């Protein structure tokens, strides 16, 4: 099973990412200790040149880290026919105790790597490396997280045994048990819908305010984070039901299947991408008064706001369109 092409791709990429991150983190550590922009010493000029290499490496590393979340979901999904009882990725992830922790850490690292890319992109727009220490401190924090993720992922894939009988999503995401997944599945639909559209409206309004006035970055960023959590809960608790047209099937993974036109991929891409871009505006807020970034950051934030709002609105339109056009009526069950 470990020789499955998707697993090998994830293995190799994760180990490469770890190696490149450790190399970069080492130089990040040296930069944090030795960096002195006022000095014209050979070491300082060498570090300045080295930081271009590190920055380029990390752009690709973090870029792949973003993609690897979706590859992991895809891999878990296509592996499910190999396990008795599994109907989709949720069953495959339950084969051993490392599947879901890896997924959760991958989601966290997706956001962390994406925010690092925002910092790095912004720093590279300036002439005097204003975020050099911030971004390398962040890198030193990010590196162990991705190493732990690789460890968990390795344990998960190495622990996949074909003779294991696992659970199907209908038993994991049911409102009749007492797990976190079932708590999410049992959120009532009407208050859930009100909460989803209310938080989405507040996010859009705060985004428009940030775009027009250049203020409220922290608020928009916080709303984006909240939108992400509420949207995931909404997908599990009621949006998924409209796709399956079943009142008791809450699986967030079945929508990745071809029979549902792979709708899960654009949905999650929009949700994750929109959230990441929105949270990126908040990450840049502390540096708005840095002299070399005073003009750059508002321009970057505007682009992030537009990207975030477009993604979140596409997500909202997709789920709303499904709710409006399906003959399935949820309320009453």
């Amino acid at each position, binding site marked *: 099973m470990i020789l499955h092409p998707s697993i090998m791709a994830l293995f190799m990429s994760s180990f490469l990412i770890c190696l490149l991150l450790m190399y970069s983190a080492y130089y990040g550590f040296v930069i944090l200790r030795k960096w002195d922009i006022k000095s014209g010493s050979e070491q300082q000029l060498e570090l300045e040149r080295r930081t271009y290499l590190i920055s380029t490496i990390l752009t690709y590393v973090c870029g792949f880290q973003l993609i690897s979340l979706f590859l992991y979901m895809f891999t878990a999904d296509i592996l499910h026919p190999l396990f008795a009882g599994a109907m989709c990725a949720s069953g495959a992830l339950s084969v051993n105790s490392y599947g879901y922790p890896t997924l959760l850490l991958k989601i966290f690292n997706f956001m962390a790597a994406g925010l690092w890319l925002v910092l790095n992109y912004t720093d590279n727009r300036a002439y*005097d490396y204003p975020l050099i220490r911030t971004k390398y401190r962040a890198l030193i924090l990010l590196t162990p997280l991705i190493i732990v993720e690789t460890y968990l992922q390795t344990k998960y894939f190495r622990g996949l045994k074909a003779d294991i009988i696992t659970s199907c999503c209908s038993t994991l995401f049911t409102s009749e048990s007492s797990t976190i997944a079932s708590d999410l599945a049992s959120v009532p639909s009407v208050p859930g819908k009100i909460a989803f559209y209310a938080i989405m409206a507040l996010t859009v309004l705060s985004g428009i305010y940030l775009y027009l006035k250049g203020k409220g970055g922290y608020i928009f960023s916080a709303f984006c984070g909240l939108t992400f959590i509420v949207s995931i809960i909404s997908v599990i608790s009621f949006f998924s039901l409209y796709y399956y047209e079943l009142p008791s099937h809450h699986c967030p993974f079945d929508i990745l299947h071809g029979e549902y036109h792979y709708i899960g991929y654009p949905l999650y891409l929009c949700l994750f991408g929109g959230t990441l871009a929105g949270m990126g505006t908040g990450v840049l807020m502390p540096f708005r008064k840095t002299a070399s970034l005073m003009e750059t950051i508002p321009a970057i934030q505007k682009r992030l706001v537009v990207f975030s709002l477009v993604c979140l609105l596409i997500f909202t339109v997709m789920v709303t369109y499904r709710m409006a056009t399906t003959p399935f009526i949820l309320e009453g069950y």
Partner: protein
Amino acid sequence: MIELTDIKKVFNAGRPNEFTAVEEVSLSLDSGKVTVLKGPSGSGKTTLLGIIGCMARPTSGRIHLTGPLMQGMAFAPKGAPAEVTSLPERFLTEIRRRAFGFIFQQFNLIRGITVLENVMLPAYPMGDDFKSLRERATRILKDFNLSGKLSSRIEWLSGGEAQRVAISRALINDPAVIIADEPTAHLDTKLSAEFMDIVKRLKGEGKTVIIASHDPIVFDSPIIDRVVEMRDGRISGEHIRS
């Protein structure tokens, strides 16, 4: 003003063929003056010119630019000298395009395209209106008596004409500083004197000119303000004439 502080340039550092081309060079070059870097082959003149013109980075040391050559640069804090050796490549490109005009020893004109196209080429990335760019290039070429050669290919030009095209190309983005590396190396006495007349004219227009040369026609010329002598990568002497 261009201020160099303790510049050092080592090629192939850490390898058996390590070579130190420039060492312990500190220099202040005033705006609007003509400076000659004089010295024998291998003395580090060309390397130093490349570093001053932001075409190469030093191994250590800093370069600060200030005054008219930094006008319009997004990264130059108002009035303060801008340190250029630490700048990311994107900003160095902007400096090379706007602040410096280069005249190379071999002229480095592009064969197969016309004189006018050669002169316009360094201005293409600036995104200027094509018609006004063409007019500007035509005007510069006319100033150098090359009006009749606009459509000529580079390979059809004489040495003197090629030299004037190279100078025209260096001026297309109206740089504050002209850098010329051994500009008279392939010219006879008459053409070398003609070149010095052009340098005089550029000085009159307020341009800063830095020339690397070991040609007496250049460094003995009365229009030169300062001669910096180099040997073995270091400054070995200096003469200020005005």
